[in-house]
């Protein structure tokens, strides 16, 4: 009976073993039999334990009256004081709402648009067109956020290029960036502008990795472009889409807000203020904000983890592929 997991196997083709009384034995037995495989993960584990898990002890500062100069052990335990401060702040509900809305917009468009772009790009098989277009598309990712935001500010000024277009469509002439109702859209578009090309790279690579034999077989069966895209390409890159979706869900509260700091202003605070910018402004010039910012970070981490697990489970149920 072959119980060893060979390099070539990935599915559970291990024949059933006899039932063992203790549960640990199953894991230890697995380890003993597949130790050659398990060795491979050791350097990775060491890396994460040293550089991610040891520092994670610092999370406990969310519950302490912490000062870096004092150290963790000499700081007083304050329990959920900071969390109480967070939730009792009158602005918090508004800020949290803004964070959620913009995170969802970023997540949705940040996944859908790059995939569509990658699909459209892969349809153009002319190499001398395809390559330069892709290169141009990810260029904005490398230009500093400050420059991009300066351009945006300029475009949306009272006499800016984009404002003129809006006025031509009947809107009133004003500085679009100072109007709170447009901010969500602006932030999504700017993030897309910067990130679409770069995010699409992964999907382009995945599309090219799809087995060409399947395409050939489909054409022989009489499938047209759209049917091929729907039935072969998309399912082919579905694992990658799911991976990126689950990962991005986990990160949605921590990324995509750098541009906000550069683009927002007091008149747009009601829609533009997010957790990170609000806490930044409130702690400007402040001294001992370490415990408080650790608490905010912990709050965001917990929510993100819940969402991560949720999206993984959902994608397992709906798309039959999941990350873990």
């Amino acid at each position: 009976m072959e119980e060893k997991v060979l390099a070539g196997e990935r599915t559970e083709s291990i024949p059933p073993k006899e039932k063992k009384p203790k549960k640990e034995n199953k894991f230890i037995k697995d380890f003993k039999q597949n130790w050659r495989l398990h060795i491979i993960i050791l350097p990775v584990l060491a890396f994460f334990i040293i550089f991610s898990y040891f520092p994670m002890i610092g999370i406990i500062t969310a519950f302490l009256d912490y000062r870096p100069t004092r150290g963790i052990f000499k700081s007083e335990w304050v329990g959920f004081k900071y969390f109480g401060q967070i939730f009792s702040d009158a602005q918090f509900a508004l800020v949290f709402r803004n964070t959620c809305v913009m995170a969802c917009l970023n997540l949705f468009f940040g996944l859908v648009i790059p995939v569509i772009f990658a699909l459209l790009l892969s349809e153009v098989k002319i190499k001398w067109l395809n390559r330069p277009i892709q290169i141009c598309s990810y260029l904005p990712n490398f230009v500093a956020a400050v420059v991009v935001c300066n351009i945006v500010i300029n475009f949306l000024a009272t006499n800016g290029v984009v404002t003129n277009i809006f006025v031509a469509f009947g809107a009133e002439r004003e500085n679009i960036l100072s109007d709170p109702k447009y901010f969500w859209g602006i932030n999504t578009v700017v993030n897309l502008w910067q990130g679409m090309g770069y995010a699409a790279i992964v999907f382009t690579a995945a599309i090219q990795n799809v087995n060409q034999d399947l395409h050939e077989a489909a054409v022989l069966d009489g499938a047209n472009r759209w049917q091929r895209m729907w039935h072969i390409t998309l399912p082919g890159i579905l694992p990658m889409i799911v991976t990126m979706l689950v990962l991005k869900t986990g990160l949605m509260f921590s990324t995509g807000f750098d541009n906000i700091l550069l683009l927002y202003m007091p008149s747009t605070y009601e829609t533009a203020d997010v957790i990170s910018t609000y806490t930044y402004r409130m702690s400007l010039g402040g001294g001992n904000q370490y415990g408080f910012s650790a608490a905010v970070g912990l709050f965001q981490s917990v929510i993100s983890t819940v969402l991560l697990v949720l999206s993984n489970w959902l994608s397992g149920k709906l798309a039959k592929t999941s990350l873990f």
Partner: protein
Amino acid sequence: MKKEKSVKISTGMVEHPSVGRIVFLVVDIILLLGIAFVCILPLWHVIMASISDGYALYTTKSLLFVPAGKISFEGFSKVIALSQVWKGYGMTLVYVVSSTVLGVFLTMCGGYYLSKKTLWTKFISILILLTMMFNGGLVPTYMVLRTLGLLNTPFAIIIPGCTNAIYIMMAMTAFRNVPPSIEEAATLDGCGHWRMMFQISFPMAKGIMMVVAMNCVVMQWNSWFPASIYLTTARDLWPLQLVMKELMNTYSESNILKTLPIDFDKFVIQYVLIVISTIPILIACPFFQRYFGDMTVGGVKE
């Protein structure tokens, strides 16, 4: 007979395009060109600004399609003459190569391992994913590095950020896509896990792994904050972005405005710095792109 234009789908297959197909292609290309144009704008603006005349640049806040005022290479000549810029280039190159190699290796190990279903897989993936969600903060990480004695050495930059959960998950997806038939065939030939990983699976998943490698390169190229905290005394070890940041501060707008008389040439320098620190990575990226579509098919009869 009318010669019909044919489009190659893959080796050995041709398709005769219909009118609808051509219309779609034309619209598609126009749309993509529009997107490419919009996307190249910021970089073009920066490049034009870096060769502009200082005063003209300062007074025209709009998007530049051509250099503002008369073309001047003053900024470039000033910055290129600084020795620390070249030192920064050198160190960044070292960091990028070392970190990417280490990062790709670790990512590969992680991705390969997680693509096999063992009893431990789920547990380890959760372990790794949690590192992405929870962060201890600046001070604890600093203390870990200090205890390890890595402060003010290049290893403080190369090791901590070389890989992360996202890359490993991407690699896992890539390895999962490798057709099992190939791996089975290799096992029958007596291949162990390490050889399998390097010689069989990695080439098959090269597309995604190259994306991971490119991400590592870009991330390492752009990073300056870890260096500013971990390399406080070792100025010779500073990467390019940190050197640029220091220079940017010297030539910042408020500093320039306060001197007498205002030297407008200094405004150009900010853009020169951006160009100098961005262009190399832009040249490197298409180089990676070549590998994205690299696929070796065959070797197994269905």
